[in-house]
């Protein structure tokens, strides 16, 4: 379950952001996970809930936005949403592409309560 390591990194980023912005209680963390990553959303959510117990992040909602896979064919220049188990171009059949989207793993925003 490497999602524990991922959840741990999210916690680290959250603590930094909370400190820098004076947030006392975290209510929402929105992350983006590409469709073509080795991250399982359910496992990540599970690991996150366990990890945040008894911390200022406990109870925060983890919103996981999945970004779909998007590729561009280098041969016909067409853009297509590839299959996870077949990245080749459905338009011309070429096996020469670049991934435009689907590999991201990003903390997008963090919401929390602030006194004042």
């Amino acid at each position, binding site marked *: *379950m*490497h999602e*524990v*390591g*991922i959840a741990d*990194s*999210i916690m*680290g*980023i959250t603590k930094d*952001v909370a400190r820098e*912005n004076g*947030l*006392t*209680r975290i*209510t*929402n963390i929105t*992350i983006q996970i590409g469709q*073509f*990553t*080795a*991250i399982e959303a359910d496992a990540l959510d599970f690991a996150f809930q366990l990890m945040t117990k008894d911390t200022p992040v406990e109870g925060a909602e983890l919103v996981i936005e999945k970004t779909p896979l998007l590729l561009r064919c280098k041969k016909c220049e067409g853009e297509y949403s590839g299959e*996870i*188990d*077949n*990245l*080749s171009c459905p338009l011309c059949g070429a*096996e*020469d592409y670049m991934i435009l989207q689907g590999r*991201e*793993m*990003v*903390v*997008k*925003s*963090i*919401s*929390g*309560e*602030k*006194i*004042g």
Partner: protein
Amino acid sequence: MGKSTKTQTIPVKTRILSENDRLAAENRAWFVKQGIFVVNLISSPGSGKTTLLVDTLNALKGKQHCAVIEGDQQTSLDANRIAETGFPVRQVNTGRACHLDASMIKNAVSELAVTGLDILFIENVGNLICPAEFDLGEHCKVVLMSVTEGEDKPLKYPVIFHLSRAVVMTKMDLIPHLRYDPLLAEKNIRKINPQAVILRTSTYTSDGLQDWLDWLVTQKSHLPL
């Protein structure tokens, strides 16, 4: 006292693994400076990583200065096998973690304390999923798939096959006993990674070992990458 709280949303846009990536970049910069070619070997448990490594090291003896970092959740069994070749080795036990990360490599490298290295092999924890997203600072990932695992592994674990520069089909000597189609396996690899170099090896017959060694030495000669 009317101390009120208000909710604020902070835009962040930080890569989740940014801390690991930072350490990996430090590792990579150091490897490049030292002229060390670093290979991260990844496969399911038991696909033949350590066996191939032992044969590789024995073949490179007197030609390339090598060292090995062995990642396993438990035991130093693999490190002991490597140590018999006479090359320096560090065992990293990851405990509950199912993959190596950049900080583990940083520590292991400092403990190895060897100079004048040509090639550093990292054997990752046997697993096709967890190691995929953790950059160690290596120059390339190599994924091994043994023929007993079936032709479909690239399709089931596409991320690691996509990220690897070479795929080694191991245990080719077993083909006569199996209904395994190497061409279908290659076709599946191509769907995920058209650029991958595909090699076939058997440590029992030594078939394909020379191709693998040649590939390694060529990659090494292309440094810095």
